[in-house]
């Protein structure tokens, strides 16, 4: 079972990556969901599926062959957080679509951002200071 789970996790991760690399934002959002599933499955698999019964104990007895509870606890919260992340990605998708009318990743950068401003601005600043220096040779106060 572990090998099957490992292969499934690998397959899901590959598909998730393929979707994340897509140009269309909708597919990217789907990729977020599938990648999340792959990672959850991977974490659970790393804890092994040694147990025969679920991890429930009674005051009287602790079953000797219970499943590993720790990765289950980790994955349980991870699923809910993954859902939060997915919804956030959906919200981004919708607001990008509404404010810019596009759903392709490369265009998003183009539309929402100016080109990196550092070089131009700093160059200008230095020139400006040069000019000031020539005007009043560093007149203090």
């Amino acid at each position, binding site marked *: 079972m572990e090998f099957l789970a490992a292969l499934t996790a690998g*397959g899901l991760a*590959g598909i998730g990556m393929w979707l994340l690399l897509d140009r269309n934002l909708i597919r990217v959002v789907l990729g977020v969901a599938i990648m999340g599933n792959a990672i959850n499955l991977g974490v659970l698999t790393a804890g*092994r599926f040694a147990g025969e*019964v679920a991890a*429930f*104990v009674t005051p009287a007895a602790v079953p000797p062959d219970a499943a590993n509870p720790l990765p289950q606890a980790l994955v349980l919260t991870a699923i809910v957080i993954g859902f939060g992340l997915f919804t956030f990605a959906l*919200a981004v998708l919708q607001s990008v679509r509404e404010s810019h009318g596009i759903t392709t990743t490369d265009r998003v950068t183009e539309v929402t951002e100016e080109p*990196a401003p550092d070089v131009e601005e*700093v160059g200008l600043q230095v020139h400006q200071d040069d000019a000031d220096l020539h005007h009043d*040779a560093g007149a203090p106060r």
Partner: protein
Amino acid sequence: MLTALFAIAVSALLAPALSARMDDRAGWFLALAPLGAFAWFVSCIPTVAVGGVVTESIAWVPALGIDVAMRLDGLSLLFALLITGIGTLIVLYAGAYLSDHHHLGRFYAYLLVFMMAMLGLVLADDLIAMFVFWELTSVASFLLIAFQHEKSVSRRAALQALLITGGGGLALLAGLVLLGIAGEAWRFSELDVAAVEAHGLYYGIMVLVLIGCFTKSAQIPFHLWLPNAMNAPTPVSAYLHSATMVKAGVYLLARLNPVMGGEGGWSDVLVLVGASTAVVGAVLAIRQTDLKRLLAYTTVTVLGQLTMLIGTNTTYGLQAFVLFLLAHSLYKGALFMAVGAVDHATGTRELAKLGGLIRFMPLTGAAVALAAFSNAGLPPFFGFIAKEFAYAGLIEMGVTGWIVTAVMVVTNALLLAAAGLVFIRTFLGARGHYPREPHEVPMPMWLGPMLLAIGGFVLGAWHHWPETWLINAAVQAVARGAVDVNLYLWGGVTPAVVASLLTVGLGVLFYGFRHAVRRHIARWRVFWGVSGDLIWDRLLKRLFRFAGMLASGWQHGSLRLHLILLGLVLSSTVFVGLGVGGEPLLGAGAHPAGAVSPLSLPGVVGCLLALAGAGAAAVMRGRLALVTALGASGLGLALFFLAVNAPDVATTQLMVETLTVVFLALVLRKLPSIPGAAPEGRGARATHLLVSVFFGAAVALALIVAVNLPLAGNISEWYLQNSYPGGKGGNVVNVILVDFRAFDTLGEIVVVALAALAAATLLGGGEHTEMTRRGQPEFDSVLLRQAVRPLAGLLVLVSLVLLWRGHNLPGGGFIGGLVAATGFILVVLTFGNYPARALMRLRPTLLVGAGLSCAVGAGLLGLMAGEPFLTGLWIFPLGLPLGTPLLFDMGVFLTVFGSVMHMMQRIAGRAT
């Protein structure tokens, strides 16, 4: 000593408030701290003068053996007196000079912070503590130079000073750390001289320390920041950039001279760099027409001479160093303050416009006269003794000494001419043309220069006082062995006296023919073309361009390229790791038999469904088909979780998948249908495919190798054993979530809440979310509409049951919250979000807040009972097990429910 530092730091904190209340009179109060410190240091003179030291220390980083260790010896005392003494006068002076400035309080604060740092620097015995104070002076200097930050010249000068001294500081830090390692001690006073000299990194240490000192003390080629720093208000120039801060480098050179000043070339470097700096400074000084810049370049000259004097390492040279240091601080501080006063009174510092000021400003004029005489090195002023000893010290060195002496005579002659410019040109002669009517400045402004100038005279005329009380101890601290100190004004016709006479003669000549001298210097235009400032600007510009190139190469803004890089690096790390590590991939031999669980039918079906669904989602285009495929994939995963005995995880996955499908459907409905695989080149698609396959294979391989090894440790066993005794619950997963690892869970629900708030904000609407009474058209069926309400009510009931029983049976806060949300979402879909909201009675955000409060409250209850945060407490009224973990789980329930509802309300408000 620590008290003195503390008192000055406190007055720095008080300065803005005091200044706001009392305007410029605040200076009188703020000057009390440095004045008190000055008095204390004066009281230390008798102890130190006979060779004693005063030490204080508090532990700072005990683990690394770093203390704030203070040690007051002759050199430190001399500096401390200068810092606090001149500091007191400067604070008073600044009050008058900047009386009309609206940020006077801030100015006081910066100035006092600097004073504290500088005092710490000269007192610190610990290498690291000294470095921290060193950097603090750089920062304070930056703030003070940029005080008039509206002017771009000031900003540029401040940045330049910070970059140069800060860069030097980095080198110094490396040098000090190496020095500490080589010298086997972290205190200046305990460094092992022999070990340092024998150490293989001796030259490395020397170069690094020298870079630090040379940048700070404006030696060539780092001198260019100092004249530009004159853009600061005059009190700053007088205090930081002539009397104290720029001497920090010289101080450290002197401090390390006994350690480093052996045969290793230390002296030669100091003499060479110092002499060049002196010449360049003097030549540049005589060209200036602005009084303040003129003084700045003479300061560069003096710093060069001081560096050179340490390098001589002769009896006279070291005495001259200490004498010159003291003399220069006194007269240069006085001159700067006086120039500020002239500027204040007349509105100009241009030499061409000044003249005849003595009639209007007799007191300032007198102070300048005294200071200028000392500056020019005329007897019986203190400057004369200093210069005399300098010549004697250099001549002692032999042939190089003679050459350097010749250089010194010329530079000193230029300094004398400069002193002449400052006094004669400004105060004597015909009346100048002033922008405003000159007047004598208020008392705090002439008091400082006057006291300092008189000091220069008194110390020179009665030179046995400083000899006994100050100079002797300071010289002993600088020298490598004991040095006999004996000051005199007249020691017969020695070579030094001849050199002095020559200097005065040359100086007078230079002054007389100053226009010719300037013309001659101006002819070397070639050299002015290579001015440091231009080089600096170009260097900075190139650096920014290079950084921009580097940044845009990596931060190209393409999400996909980042992802490809990430995927490739990650998968190749795994492949390389596996290849090198050599773990057997499918080696059943290395594995304890029977540890691999057998395949089960639900597990296989679940996996296949998950893969098939995901694969379909990757290739299909229809929106509905996409949603279905994704849902199927999630369901398959839930089935698998069930098959491996993880019922809670399976339920959660099921609930989340349901909600995912609903949300996705609502959002996708408004989007255009997805274009087929995007129109990209074949190459790009092949790359993506390759990266995806690599990544998937890496994940699968890593997991296979991992599960092939036995599980380390028995932490799970501990949880199973302690679940009932420690957590009073049978559902181990839930007990871990709400009790054993509740702090993690608290963090996780905060993340969920934040994600929901952020998503809802992006979806917009705010308080004015569109509230609708219309459901989705697809739900417009009488039967459905009738059935939904009871169904939703039932789901909420079920969710409460799940919450209650979650501690012992499948369920819990996460699952309960999701189930309740599903019930309400049915209502939203059928009737619109308004009825759902009315049914909830509360805003979802309030629910989130209540949930988080519940969870934190459960933790605080444990805290109040005297246990650590989030400790579980239990009571059993009527046999019912009630405990803080249940309250915590309720918090989880409310947070998850509220978060989902918050997002749903916004999405539904938009979708209709």
